[in-house]
């Protein structure tokens, strides 16, 4: 991958003009609000904003002193690792096999891509509907299998439920990217490896997987961000953070506190979350991409 273009157009103002629309949008609707959030995190206000008090780092201190919030980090870590990990592994598995088969490939692909169209807000409801202990078809089957499914009181079941729903929602997206990545691996490499005596399994590990690493890396970033930020609707619909607070991931707590009009706490959490993500992404870029590039 070329990193820079040799030829460049020369203009002092044109690049700025080209960046302007995106710049305005991110400035006005992303950075300004983010700065506001930062500001709010240092304040204590009532819901209506009629009394504003500067409290310095009190909101952060309160978070730090809240064992539930700290526990939520662990929950989030477990959840994100599972979602990103499973999401990537499963979709890779499907993509590798879909790439292999000749017959019916298009049908498989179509059916696997379809769920991508489901809204997260609806996805949570769907899964709840399937796994609801009273009317859910899946929990009914599980009971029939002798597993007393109870995502309401069993933390593990609850975690499994939201992980499944979140992975399910993301699997098509990952699948598509992997499919594309696999298609871009020159066929002659696979042939060369076959002649070198590598069997399909070995070939996958030593050739295809390493060559997919740019795709995997991209998906890793996207999936971690997804698990951290875009799963609110799923958790809200499926477990509401329960049982107890055992599935209360950071973003769930954040949006919940926002809904409960605890603005200072919610803003402080936004700031913490952004920091975590930025650090995570930088780390991913620094360390993972180094290994990824070839």
């Amino acid at each position: 991958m070329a990193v820079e273009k040799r030829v460049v157009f020369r203009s002092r103002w044109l690049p700025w003009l080209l960046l302007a629309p995106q710049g305005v949008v991110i400035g006005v609707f992303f950075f300004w609000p983010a700065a506001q959030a930062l500001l709010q995190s240092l304040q204590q206000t009532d819901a209506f904003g009629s009394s504003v008090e500067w409290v310095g780092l009190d909101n952060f201190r309160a978070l730090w002193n809240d064992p539930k919030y700290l526990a939520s980090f662990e929950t989030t870590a477990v959840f994100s690792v599972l979602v990103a990990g499973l999401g990537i592994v499963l979709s890779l598995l499907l993509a590798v096999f879909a790439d292999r088969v000749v017959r019916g490939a298009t049908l498989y692909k179509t059916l696997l891509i379809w769920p991508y169209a489901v809204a997260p807000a609806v996805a949570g409801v769907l899964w709840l509907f399937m796994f609801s202990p009273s009317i859910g078809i899946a929990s009914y089957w599980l009971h029939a299998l002798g597993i007393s499914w109870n995502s309401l009181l069993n933390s593990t079941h609850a975690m499994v439920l939201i992980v499944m729903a979140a992975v399910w929602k993301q699997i098509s997206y990952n699948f598509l990217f992997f499919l594309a990545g696999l298609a871009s691996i020159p066929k002659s490499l696979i042939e060369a490896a076959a002649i070198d005596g590598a069997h399909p399994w070995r070939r996958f590990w030593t050739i295809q997987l390493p060559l997919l690493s740019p795709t995997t890396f991209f998906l890793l970033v996207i999936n971690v961000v997804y698990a951290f930020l875009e799963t609110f609707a799923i958790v809200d619909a499926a477990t509401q953070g329960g049982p107890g607070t055992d599935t209360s991931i950071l973003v769930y707590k954040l949006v919940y506190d926002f809904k409960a009009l605890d603005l200072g706490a919610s803003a402080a959490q936004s700031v913490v979350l952004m920091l975590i993500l930025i650090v995570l992404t930088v780390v991913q870029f620094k360390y993972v991409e180094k290994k990824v590039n070839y």
Partner: protein
Amino acid sequence: MVERRPTLGILAHVILILGVIVVAFPVYITFVASTHTTAEVVQAPMPMLPGSHLIENYKAALLGTGNSQGSNAAVGRMMFVSLVSALVITIGKIAISLLSAFAIVYFRFPFRMLCFWAIFVTLMLPVEVRIGPTYQVVASLGLINTFAGLTVPLIASATATFLFRQFFLTVPEELAEAARMDGAGPMRFFKDILVPLSATSIAALFVIQFIYGWNQYLWPLLVTTNENMYPVVIGIKHMISGGESANNWNLVMATAMLAMIPPALVVLLMQKWFVKGLVDTEK
């Protein structure tokens, strides 16, 4: 195929079929539920085969005529709102990302990489995290209840900018040089050469962003105060949010199916381009 292994072929089909079952099952359940009466759906276990109320349920969902249907806005209008906002978001994102990626790849200017990172960081700032203050901004710009308010704040796109940048880096430099020799200025090159060449990447992003736009929930809920401006996802939530009574799951599911059709169509129609677009981008 570089080897002859029937077992592996069978394994591939087995895994794919399993995958399809797991992945498509919720959608199937949705469909089945949308063909029964409410009472049938809430029995445990619910029926596994489609029932006989398909037409009646879908008619009710589409026209908003179900006897105890929650939302009075028929799905038709909501679908329209969803469509317009999804399209505006999609086209907007693609347009501004194309421009930014063009600037970043084809020009040299101070703070170039800083600009790129500034755009990239927005990945970490989804609506959920900045919702309150963003609402303030939109309100003070008078964009409440407008398509602009529904769409513009969501229009920045780190993913699209990133992918376009990757793609532009693979476009041979000689094309730009040839265009310069032909007398094309930067914008002319952009319009005549770069954009047409990006067609497959654009298609890929179109799918991703369309679905993103179509599936918005929290944001539209906040910036619209008029049910005429509600997208269909809110409509679905409207039908299931009742605090008091159990839901008309059959109609909810019928609406969910209806709401799934346009994005599913976009996915299916663009599938070929989509994958190809991503391939081009990857390299």
